[in-house]
């Protein structure tokens, strides 16, 4: 405001009274153009090396056309000109020039210039020569040029010379390439080596000496098949392979950031993965469950516990990190969606879709509109804590209760029917919902079986103390207090600073979810008044108000959520958006209808209450729910403050661009003619078995990824996968029984090293099996397995991480046992801010983004862990205790150590060396000595490097 006061003065002093055109031009040339040239043109002119914000300031026409945030200039209107807003430095998101605020005098000059109509001399409009960032974005051209968009071929098996070598299709492709390069396959691995390899690859555990003995003794031609089928049928298969998906979906048990709040029910998703892989759920269904498991018309159910399995897959969307109290909630939502789309794009499609958040993809056929079309699905979805219906008890009970209620209601005479008075909105109020219909209102949605409409006629509710339902309400206690459920409103734009809810209830949460922000339940900072936790209306109806910080969020999208977790109930009568205090309420309005129940009705109520009282405590999983369908806006250059074109929810243009709901999206992703989904999966399986993918960049099939080493093999595998019902187990089975997989890890003795070094130094052609280092999980699980302390139970809540003195920081959880309760590593909690040091040392990835290919580092810290970690030492002692307790010769004990840990007996030289060690230590306590020896064997490189 204060600048305004100066304007007439300045005009009067600097410009002639009549303000001639000449004087104005002179003013421009003297005061404005030099500043523009000096301070702005390095980024905002035709010859700028890189044009920023899409804005040129080197001509009035360009200023009027504006950049990403709109026109820079409003001639004559100083306050409406963005140029002025930015040079005043009052808006923290728009401050120009970026490095330094212009002086007050210069700012005043610009105000003068604009106030005077922003005159500019007649001159040509400078234009940039094309886009100087290089070629412009041409989606079709890129689509046609890059291999991974092309349809999957169905290639014939290539001809090979050594025709007795291939056992399965893939062997032909591998051998053909080897032969073309003048290489030959390695000899077949020794049986013991193969057995150890396949055990680790399929179940992540070493074979026991008994399993080894049985296999070595089995001379039958299908001995390997028997082993593989046994391993694929083992429940431990899922424990090994689920972890690969957990790496992709950045699985975690906490949200990270300042206080590392818990992701409750996270482990249900992990257990879902284990079961799905063990059951060999077809991969297309598996993907559909992830993308839209909540929308499948016939969800897959747990074979014995009968709950909805499919919906658990959607949990993957929500393993993102999350902070409390973001000062910019919409920006926070945009960042979370970026992470969700990154995970979705890379995991299922091998595409870096989120690279198109700020600009069209620099290299791939993915536009910014594609990216924001994906966000539309997320804008139209809601996170929920989904109550699992174990045994379908809730569903059955609810059906029975509905029947009972129908009978009871039929006995109530129609004269009991109340005619509800239409509510009167006061000034400043809008009625959002009155719940007067017979059903949950249109646009509202529910989860679980708690929330139901009372309808317009007088009926009962299954609560002997309050047996009369109130017509014109939605009531989560209608079918009994122990019902569990969620009620969600349609999405609306917050337009008032109060939301008044006429309701009666206790022990339920009521909240307004703003821009999908979920963390207010942990900390209300910046969101005070947007959540009523454990609402308690003290027995009667009253107006409950969401307010407080709500006023800050006017203009933001939101929905209301009522959560009844089974401990309470809520009867909701009416909701108003308001700018004023809550209306008054009469005494009569405060209570549910009263009066004695007819005797025959009372019996039904009693029966209903008893039945619903038997409902078990619920189990919750993280899941997605359908919200109000929405279009999304492109955020220009990634800025949510700068809205571009509107886009509907639709799939990537390069893959058809089909619009629809999330279920349609899921169907598009898994269409057999989608060239990416099957290739990406086939490649992942290959990667896990052969140590490197056919496309080595397993999460990036785009132009910045690496090309396939065996493109025809990749297509053959993808075709094979789809035509065999997307069976993961079948694909794995075929590969581990192949001749390629069966090779030794040493090259053929007659193959000259020089030749190998020259043509294939990194073994891309697989003329031998690579030596693979065990994953962190397999290192720890193997130690437990050999020490005899492995607890092989499946599933359940995560075992807290054992915290050392070095694991400090905010949000610390209770420390878990040193040995992780002996459970397999997959059950160890993943606390983002307190990750297991053991796992991190062995490259288990942090849960931040999709990671289909782990690092394999080789560092002294790994030696320190295996040498000195108290967990390792404790395990060797307990192993030694058992060993010494058995009356055995030293020779047998040494054999036992080697067999368990390394899957072989010692060589003569090794035995000699071990015996001399034993002689050296003959004075020591035998348990110490054998623990030391066990410790040495665990530290042998062979324990973690698998040939």
């Amino acid at each position, binding site marked *: 405001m204060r600048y305004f006061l100066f304007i007439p003065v300045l005009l009067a002093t600097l410009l002639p009274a009549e303000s001639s055109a000449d004087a104005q031009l002179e003013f421009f040339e003297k005061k404005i153009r030099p500043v523009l040239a000096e301070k702005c043109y390095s980024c905002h002119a035709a010859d700028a090396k890189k044009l920023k914000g899409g804005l040129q300031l080197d001509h009035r026409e360009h200023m009027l056309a504006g950049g990403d945030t709109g026109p820079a200039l409003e001639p004559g209107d100083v306050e409406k000109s963005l140029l002025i807003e930015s040079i005043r430095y*009052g808006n923290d998101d728009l401050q120009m020039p970026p*490095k*330094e*605020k212009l002086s007050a005098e210069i700012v005043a000059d610009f105000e003068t210039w604009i106030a005077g109509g922003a005159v500019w001399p007649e001159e040509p409009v400078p234009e940039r020569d094309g886009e100087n960032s290089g070629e412009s974005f041409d989606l079709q051209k890129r689509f046609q040029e890059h291999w991974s968009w092309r349809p999957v071929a169905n290639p014939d098996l290539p001809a090979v010379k050594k025709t007795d070598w291939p056992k399965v299709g893939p062997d032909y492709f591998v051998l053909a390439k080897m032969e073309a390069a003048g290489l030959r396959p390695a000899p077949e691995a020794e049986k013991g080596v193969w057995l150890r390899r396949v055990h680790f690859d399929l179940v992540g555990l070493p074979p026991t000496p008994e399993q080894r003995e049985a296999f070595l003794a089995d001379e039958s031609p299908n001995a390997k098949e028997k082993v593989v089928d046994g391993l694929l049928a083992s429940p431990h298969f899922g424990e090994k392979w689920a972890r690969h998906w957990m790496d992709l979906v950045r699985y975690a048990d906490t949200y990270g*950031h*300042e206080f*590392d709040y818990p992701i409750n029910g996270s482990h249900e998703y992990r257990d879902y993965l284990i079961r799905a892989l063990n059951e060999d759920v077809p991969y297309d269904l598996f993907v559909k469950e992830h993308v839209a498991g909540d929308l499948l018309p016939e969800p897959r159910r747990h074979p014995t516990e009968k709950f909805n399995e499919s919906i658990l897959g959607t949990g993957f969307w929500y393993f993102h*990190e999350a902070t409390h*109290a973001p*000062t*910019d909630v919409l920006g926070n939502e945009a*960042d979370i969606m970026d*992470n969700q789309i990154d995970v979705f794009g890379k995991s299922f499609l091998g595409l870096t879709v989120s*690279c198109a958040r700020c600009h069209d993809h620099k290299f791939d056929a993915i536009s910014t509109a594609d990216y924001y079309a994906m966000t539309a699905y997320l804008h139209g979805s809601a996170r929920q804590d989904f109550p699992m219906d174990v045994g379908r008890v809730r569903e059955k009970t609810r059906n029975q209760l509905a029947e009972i209620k129908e009978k009871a209601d039929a006995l109530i005479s129609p004269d009991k029917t109340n005619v509800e008075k239409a509510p009167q909105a006061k000034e400043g109020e809008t009625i959002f919902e009155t719940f007067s219909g017979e059903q949950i209102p249109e646009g509202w949605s529910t989860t679980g079986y708690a929330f139901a409409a009372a309808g317009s006629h007088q009926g009962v509710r299954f609560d002997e103390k309050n047996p009369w339902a109130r017509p014109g309400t939605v009531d989560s206690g209608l079918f009994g207090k122990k019902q569990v459920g969620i009620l969600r409103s349609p999405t609306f734009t917050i337009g008032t600073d109060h939301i008044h809810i006429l309701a009666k209830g206790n022990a339920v949460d009521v909240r307004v979810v703003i821009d999908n922000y979920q963390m207010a339940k942990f900390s209300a*900072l910046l969101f005070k008044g947007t959540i009523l936790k454990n609402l308690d209306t003290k027995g009667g109806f009253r107006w409950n108000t969401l307010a407080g*910080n709500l006023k*800050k969020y006017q203009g933001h999208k939101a929905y209301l959520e009522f959560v009844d977790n089974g401990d309470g109930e809520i009867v909701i009568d009416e909701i108003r958006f308001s700018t004023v205090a809550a209306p008054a309420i009469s005494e009569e309005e405060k209570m549910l209808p009263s009066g004695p129940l007819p005797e025959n009705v009372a019996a039904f109520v009693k029966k209903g209450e008893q039945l619903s009282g038997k409902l078990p405590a619920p189990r919750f999983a993280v899941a997605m729910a359908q919200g109000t369908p929405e279009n999304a806006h492109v955020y220009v250059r990634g800025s949510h403050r700068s809205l571009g074109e509107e886009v509907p929810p639709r799939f990537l243009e390069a893959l058809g661009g089909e619009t629809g709901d999330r279920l349609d999206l899921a169907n598009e992703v898994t269409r057999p003619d989608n060239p990416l989904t099957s290739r990406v999966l086939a490649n992942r399986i290959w990667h896990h078995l052969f140590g490197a993918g056919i496309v080595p*960049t397993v999460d*990036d099939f*785009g132009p910045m990824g690496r090309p396939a080493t065996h493109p025809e093999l990749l297509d053959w595998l993808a075709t094979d996968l789809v035509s065999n019902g997307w069976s993961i187990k079948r694909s794995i089975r075929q590969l581990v029984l192949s001749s390629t997989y069966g090779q030794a890890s*040493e090259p053929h003795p007659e193959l000259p*090293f020089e030749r*190998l*070094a020259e043509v294939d*130094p*990194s073994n891309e052609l697989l003329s031998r099996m690579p030596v693979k280092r065990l994953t962190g999980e397999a290192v720890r699980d193997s130690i437990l397995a050999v020490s005899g302390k492995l607890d092989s139970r499946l599933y359940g809540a995560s075992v807290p991480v054992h915290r050392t*003195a070095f694991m400090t920081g*905010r949000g610390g959880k209770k420390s878990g046992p040193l040995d992780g309760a002996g459970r397999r590593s997959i059950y160890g909690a993943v606390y*983002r*801010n*307190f990750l297991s040091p053991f796992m991190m*040392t062995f*490259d288990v990835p*942090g849960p*931040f*983004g999709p990671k289909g290919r782990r*690092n394999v*580092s*080789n*560092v*002294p810290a790994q*030696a*320190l862990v295996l*040498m*000195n*970690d108290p967990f390792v*030492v404790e395990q060797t002692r307990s192993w030694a205790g058992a060993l010494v307790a058995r009356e055995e010769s030293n020779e047998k004990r040494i054999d036992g150590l080697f067999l368990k840990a390394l899957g072989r007996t010692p*060589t003569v*030289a*090794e035995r000699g*060396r*071990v015996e001399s060690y034993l002689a050296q230590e003959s004075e020591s306590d035998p348990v110490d000595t054998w623990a*030391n*020896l066990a410790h*040495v*064997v665990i530290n042998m*490189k*062979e324990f*973690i*490097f698998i040939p």
Partner: protein
Amino acid sequence: MTNHCNRFQNGLHSRRDLLKGCAMGFGGVALQALMAQQSRAAVTNPLSPKPPHFAPRAKNVIFLYMDGGPSHVDTFDYKPLLEKYHGRDPREVIGELAPTQFDNVGKVLKSHWDFKQRGESGNWVSDLFPNIAKKEVIDEIAFVKSMTSKFSEHTFANYFLHTGSPFQGRPSMGAWTGYGLGSENENLPGFVVLNGGLIPPGGLDCFGSGFLPASYQGSVFLPSEQPIANIHPQEKTVEAQKRKLGLLRDLDLESLDTPMPDPQIEAAIQNYETAFRMQTAVPDLMDLRGESETVKKLYGLDADFKNTQTFGLQCLLARRLVQRGVRFIELTCPGGNGDRWDQHGKLVDGHTKNCKTVDQPIAALISDLRRLGMLDSTLIVWAGEFGRTPFAQGNDGRDHNPFGFTVWMAGGGVKGGACVGETDDWGYRAVRDRYEIHDLHATMLHLLGVEHTKSTFRFSGRDMRLTDVHGHIMKEIVA
């Protein structure tokens, strides 16, 4: 990709025999030397020294991380206007305010402390830092009074300060430094965090290696007898461990008895040699018996205030780590001073304690490095994740302010006594020579001889940089 070529041409049988033949007890010098020479050709140690892009001005960095956000208007950024308008509504006198973290805007709040110009440079320092204010210290320091961040929430701002990105899972600047330059001591990690007690909001991921290999990750050392996990042998005697490791080495060498042993396995064998030496190198680092009483006193190890002792020990250890060639050392704050530097309330008490904690040790570190001739090659960086508001939060605190705050550097390549940038008359927003965190990173790397646009790592389909697509050298403070 590992280059195997060298190995294929070696007589591998004889090599293994050679390894065996010269083994003279675990940690044997001959074996170690041989492994070092020959294995490195086959398997590159990620931490082995790498040449910089151009002649470096500094070889090591000590990052003094002022967790929580120190108040610049109470320490180095003198704003007389705050006195004049003390108690006024900031919306009236300053104008429109950006949303704050706690949304509890109080009145304009003058500094509780007096400011004076110090040293020959005449840079302003408040009475909170009597030791840093001394001529011989202050004139080594170059101030950037126009630093800005993009985030007013701790974890975003912490990740941003440490990694150049507001998200978890990105490499910390210490990791980038190790990636760019390697380390000069293979018995210690290249990036050490000396934990004074407070791990910053955002947790250990502030020191992570993100998508870079794990060997670049920060190792958190506690200033205690066992500074890192698993550094103490679990055997009853050193000899017992040596006998075990001797047996282990012999058994492992047996497994190399094949025509083409795997290079990973050889490297892993070598790691045991290194790990064994780390077991000595780390306790040696912590053993202060060789330091004079004068030096210990200088750092404040005998101070009355316990946190001064703690931070003094951290600073002394930082110097010892630099002497051992560790590339990047970060110090976190000791606890118990209120809530870190994060004084949303009780500003006077909290800032008094925080300054008392770091003032003497930091001054000592600068003097001591100069005395030892190491200051010219050691870059010291002092920074919080943001500054604080010139107006109160409630009555006696200040809220987060990322729009303009002060950081400083000293030592290798830094123009001592310089001062660049300005905030507005309130200390609220940077208005002249505005810099951002990316510029701090670019300048640090520049002083280390690393061109920030060229130190890249391919991840997620992009060539990632510490400075993302940003970063300018802060030329005004480079000597």
